[in-house]
């Protein structure tokens, strides 16, 4: 008898404990589909190739991955993206100043100070960061931004029975880089920056959103006296406008919501 060095009596014993061949075949097929779906999720979401995008759209597999929250590449930077220390890589909160005729303004902050436990706080910060991301001028998405802001504004105005509100998505900048950090300078511990601001008005039970230029904590770049290029609009100072009163139609506005 020829020797079979890979034949192990102990292995035979354990092989006997395996489930029936039909079960193994069926489960192996399902495992293959599942693992293929995982691979496609990575190939199709993180810097996808054309093939990756095509595979990611295979019907059935796409819904399976999305339904189980597996349609992502798991590239958890933890620093929340490549823009470390930048505008998006910070904690955000939503601050709404709710106005009602004849009554003092009500300021609502989400998360509210003292929100506990931490996961609740984290959810509100995630919501605020989502607003910041959707409202970002380079990577933003105006349509979902409008839907989300309408929902938030409608909720707050109904909760507090306001006529209008100013909503700020405020980011708290991280501590400066290690080499620049001065622990004796209290100002470095609390630096804020508005990522997005808007005014919401209730008009005929609809929410109208007025986009405003976000406030900046730094001076604008100096003006250079050059003629504009043919394909670029003429740069102009952002208009200093007050939020219009709820009873008056807005003088200049850039509604973000789709009127159906």
């Amino acid at each position, binding site marked *: 008898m020829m020797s079979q060095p890979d034949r192990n009596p102990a292995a035979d014993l354990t092989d006997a404990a395996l489930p029936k061949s039909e079960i193994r075949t069926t489960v192996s097929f399902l495992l293959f589909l599942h693992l293929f779906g995982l691979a496609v999720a990575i190939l199709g979401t993180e810097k996808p190739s054309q093939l990756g995008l095509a595979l990611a759209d295979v019907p059935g597999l796409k819904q399976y991955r999305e339904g189980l929250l597996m349609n992502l590449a798991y590239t958890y930077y933890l620093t929340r993206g490549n823009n470390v220390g930048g505008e998006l890589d910070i904690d955000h909160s939503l601050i709404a100043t709710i106005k009602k005729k004849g009554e003092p303004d009500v300021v609502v902050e989400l998360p509210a100070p003292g929100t506990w436990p931490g996961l609740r706080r984290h959810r509100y910060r995630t919501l605020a960061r989502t607003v910041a991301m959707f409202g970002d001028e380079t990577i933003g998405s105006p349509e*979902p931004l409008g839907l989300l802001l309408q929902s938030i504004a409608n909720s707050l105005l109904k909760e507090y029975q306001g006529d209008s509100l100013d909503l700020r998505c405020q980011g708290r900048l991280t*501590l400066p880089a290690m080499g620049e950090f001065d622990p004796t300078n209290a100002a470095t511990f609390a630096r804020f920056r508005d990522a997005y601001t808007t005014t919401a008005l209730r008009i005929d039970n609809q929410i109208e959103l007025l986009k405003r230029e976000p406030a900046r904590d730094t001076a604008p770049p100096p003006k250079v006296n050059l003629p504009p290029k043919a394909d670029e609009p003429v740069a102009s100072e952002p208009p200093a406008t007050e939020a219009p009163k709820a009873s008056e139609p807005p003088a200049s506005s850039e509604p973000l919501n789709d009127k159906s």
Partner: protein
Amino acid sequence: MRDIAADYFRSISEQVGRAWNRFWFLPSDPLTLCVIRVLAGLIAFYSVATFTPDLIFLFGPDGLLSIESVGRMQDQQYFSFSYFWLFDSPGALWAAHWIGLSVLAMFTLGLFTRITSVLSLIVALAYFHRGFVVTSEMEPVLAFVLFYLCLGPAGEYFSLDRLLLKRRASATPAQATSRRLSGAHWSATVAVRLIQVHLALVYFMMVLGQLNEDTWWDGTAVWWLAGRQDSALISIASLASAPYLVNLWTLGFVIFEIAFGVLAWNRLLAPLMVGISALSWLSIGLVTGMLPFAAIMFVAGLAFLPPETMRVACDAIGLKPYAQPVA
């Protein structure tokens, strides 16, 4: 020549097939899976319970995330299923919420585990999909752990199911089957292997993502993480004068991630890697404030602990009676 090639490929297919069968189907003790069930169940319960104060404020008819607006966003983003898309009245929301918490509690306690594991997955996904704009890193990891727990006998140990089974076995010993009481199941192996493979993939992609950034190379990432003062649970401002420590912390975490993905597969080194993961994830959880995410990453990593090692650990903390196969 053709015969040699044929023999070669036949040999490969036999070896691969045998290895595949042993990797996925060799029956194993579900003790590790049961421990993961308890811990993941607690995390899922906590995650859903923290929706309680904000349930109506978020999901109600005039909630921050109204069905009308956010539902339209959802349609544009991706496929989701959640029973919370079907109703937003406060009464229905509260009923669904308390039922969901009850299901998660039963799953954690190991009652009717085969059923409550599936229901728990549905409950958790319902919240995660409905509140997709407030989910972050933790939810997808918890989701796949809960999914894989549905596939194996996660109620064999540390469960009310076990208690009921023992009572039935002592009452009617003739009806007890050796297979039911032996503890070894091939489905336990499938479930544990899926957690292992998926987690190893997560570690791999996390490392790739982090090494795509300068801060994880230059050793300052932990400083930037802790610099988000509203999230961080500890202040490391004093470490500004100890950059080497910050560098070590940062690079140490990356090395741990690489090492875990490779060395945790070794039965001898797995307990060591799991131990290191506890410290690593605790440290990252404290500087990021993302303790639930750190917790679920650690819990999923327990899948690499062999059942015999898990039994030793259970013995060490006084849980021996609950971790023995029912004789």
